[in-house]
């Protein structure tokens, strides 16, 4: 199914969770924060939320900054 991931189209496997998505993209959940349709997810919610078509997912992490 097609979702919007960090501003770009992404074809996520049907039935995948947010956790699955992070695994596919190689992101360690403890080092990232996920915003799902503008709602910030707690780490324990990553497994329970199933992606659906048109979802907007932002995956962020800390980087160097001043």
């Amino acid at each position, binding site marked *: 199914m097609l979702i919007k991931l*960090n*501003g770009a189209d992404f074809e996520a496997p049907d039935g995948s969770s947010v956790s699955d998505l992070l695994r596919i*993209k*190689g*992101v*360690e959940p403890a*080092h*990232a*924060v996920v*915003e799902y349709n503008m709602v*910030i997810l*707690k780490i324990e919610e990553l497994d329970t939320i199933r992606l659906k078509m048109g979802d907007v997912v*932002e*995956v*962020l*992490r*800390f*980087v*160097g*900054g*001043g």
Partner: protein
Amino acid sequence: MSGEDDVIDNLIIAGKKVRSRLITGSGKYRDESIIPQVLAAAECDIITVALRRVDFDNPSENILKNIPKGKILLPNTSGARNADEAVRIAHLARVMGCGDWIKIEVINDQRYLLPDNQETLKAVDILAREGFVVLPYMTPDLYAARRMVDAGAAAVMPLGSPIGTNRGLKTLELIEILVNEIKVPVIVDAGIGRPSHAAMAMETGVGAILLNTAIATSEDPVAMARAFKLAVEAGRMAYLAGMAAQSRTARASSPLTGFLDESGNHLKSGV
């Protein structure tokens, strides 16, 4: 007072004692693996980071691995163009589990990267109510600074000159007014390019210096971090020691009596 330990006093932000008055950023390093050495040389307690989308071409990239445990992490809201975006970024940063300190940075102008005090104030108001320790980056305007404090800012962070310019204390006289009038720490953030700029700012009584570019883009960031540490400490010590008065005409440092020629005529004649 005697001995270095007695001379350097702690900085207190939101009731928390902070030993170092040098706050460093973690951006712009050619090689981020030297950040631990830089932090050790700077002996800083607070370090800033930014929040950005994960780069899926390099998904394991993690700045936190370069920041030793025990440091206070100060995420910024860079990228925010208004108060709502700053609040959104602050909420995301808090979920990362690294504390509730936040540097508010709201910028619309891309040429000079000057902060929008009005939108910044709105974000301070919201986030302070939510329990964040809020440090707003701002232009040094007295009325705006007072409003930031009334809204719950734990410190105010006026710029010395625009971000990344290394041009020093172009706003010094306005910053001095904040130091005199604002009861929370005044932290000079942005524009400090040289240790002498940092020392000069500290001599006026500002609480701390926040800088990134001047260390990160120097030829030897570890040595430069040490130089800034010493400059900040020297400036603070000088402020606490009470600066000697300036005058327009000379004041002899050696006694003007007891010359071999007791008449002192050689001085009067200018010889």
